[in-house]
């Protein structure tokens, strides 16, 4: 399945340093409906890459393809020079490619500390040891607390994650993701459903944790994209419409038309920029 020549040339096409994540001809069809069509995406290491587009553009499908929660109909995905097109989602996580979820994904009945520890616990392998007590897990408490402190959740460590307010759940999710020490993070609308204050908080957090990492984020809020992303890919109807820095893409008449045609409020934000 994996074509060695493709693997070797993966990323060189862009002319810069090899891409960390690259797709070629990525296509997903649902019973004849083409949700994602021939998408070539290349995410440079160390950058924050935004994936935007009007509703129904195929952002979420594309995201789910990259995180392996969906299998592509055609095309390949390379990560770090390796073909991951047919890998299982749990296995790409082991390669340091960690995703977040649109709805805050925490383990509600477990404590905030346990949530983060579950990610740290990956270090000791699969944790199939059902006969052992939790004592070996206590070794991770200190690092878990440090991570919680980092996102401002230290005082909630012993609370159940389900009892946290929404914004803090997202912060907990980011702390859990960071605990995996990911090489690359895939964020699915990190600011969806948030108040203004919370949005600023998360933007700061993402900016900070992106240091030394690569981030690909799907985002609706163009203000967030403008402030955060180095490169932006615009999708419409499953296809790539434009790619480049925000300033360049936001002036692209096709992009403006695509936004105007579907969502005047968002295009207004675009025009302001």
């Amino acid at each position: 399945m994996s074509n060695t020549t493709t693997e070797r040339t993966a990323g060189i096409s862009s002319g810069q340093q090899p891409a960390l994540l690259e797709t070629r001809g990525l296509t997903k069809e649902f019973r004849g409906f083409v949700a994602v069509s021939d998408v070539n995406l290349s995410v440079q290491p160390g950058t924050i890459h935004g994936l935007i587009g009007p509703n129904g553009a195929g952002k979420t499908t594309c995201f789910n393809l990259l995180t392996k929660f969906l299998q592509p109909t055609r095309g390949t995905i390379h990560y770090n020079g390796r073909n991951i097109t047919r890998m299982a989602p749990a296995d790409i996580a082991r390669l340091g490619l960690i995703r977040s979820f649109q709805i805050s994904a925490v383990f509600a009945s477990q404590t905030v500390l346990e949530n983060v520890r579950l990610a740290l616990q990956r270090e000791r392998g699969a944790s199939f040891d059902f006969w052992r007590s939790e004592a070996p897990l206590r070794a991770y408490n200190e690092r878990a607390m440090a991570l919680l402190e980092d996102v401002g959740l230290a005082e909630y460590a012993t609370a159940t994650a389900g009892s946290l307010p929404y914004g803090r759940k997202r912060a907990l999710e980011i702390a859990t993701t960071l605990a995996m020490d990911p090489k690359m993070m895939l964020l699915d609308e990190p600011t969806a459903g948030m108040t203004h204050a919370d949005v600023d908080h998360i933007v700061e957090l993402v900016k900070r944790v992106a240091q030394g990492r690569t981030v690909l984020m799907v985002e609706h809020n163009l203000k967030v994209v403008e402030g955060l992303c180095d490169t932006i890919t615009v999708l419409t109807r499953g296809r790539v419409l434009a790619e480049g820095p925000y300033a360049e893409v936001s002036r692209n008449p096709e992009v403006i038309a695509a936004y105007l045609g579907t969502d005047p409020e968002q295009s207004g934000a675009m025009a302001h920029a």
Partner: protein
Amino acid sequence: MADGSGFSPAPAAAKDVLFGFTLAQLLAFGLMVAFVVISPFILYPVFLMNVLCFALFACAFNLLIGYLGLLSFGHAAFFGMGGYICGHLAKVLGLPPELAIIAGGLVAAALGAGMGWLAIRRTGIYFAMVTLALAQMVYFFCLQAPFTHGEDGIQSIPRGKLLGFFDLSNDFTLYWLVAGIFLAGFLMIHRIVHSPFGQVMKAIRENEPRAISLGYRADDYKLIAFILSAGLAGVAGATKSIVFGIATLNDVHWNMSGEVVLMTLLGGLGTVFGPVVGAAVIITMQNYLAEFGAWVTVMQGGIFVICVLAFRRGIIGEIANFLRVRL
């Protein structure tokens, strides 16, 4: 997206005191042990042994539904098969009871590996349906296989001598063995739930996609838990066949799968002590209301309806909620 579990803001989770038990759980455990030790001097030991076998069965079932969110509707297959294997080995091959019981558990675990491997590919109601269908296949196998003796079942299984020394034909001696098996099984389940494995198990129950995205292959954990649950259910069934000296089709029938669901629901899904209490209540009813014949089933149905309508958390779940502790 509604995250209101009815808790006041940020309730601190109770601290573990000993062996993963919280203080409240430790007290409840002490109470349970005291009951297990004292009751045979007051109540009929064979009845109590029956309760303990079903309590272990329900606890094993609860391991799947309570901590992994998997509703198996085929657990009778493991309970019944454990009984058949144990009975056959003790009677025909003359194995000592301890080995026969262990063998019953192992065969049930192996059966669980096969059934689980097929069933975990589905979730929710489909998982329940697949387990039910596979358990029905086991039922018809037991109806036809020569060693199970069809409608007659395996009769007059010898109780034998434990470790070649303790004569189990004495109800009292046997009671301590059964009590020991129950407590060992109970503590084993508690340990599983409070192990590094248990942490991942609960994470999968809470949010499977997220657990996967952290690099945990959810299916592996489901299969291991299924095998453990099946094995313990097999031990419970095997022990029961030694106690009563018979292994019959009753124990592999889907009715039995339904009964264990009822016991666990009544006692409290996902609580540590709920299945034990649920099993005790149901077995006591069947025992002391036996004179009403078929009406017992109607009463059980009534209780089930009341349980679902009025106290969904089950007996122990409601008590724990009232006292604001975990039990």
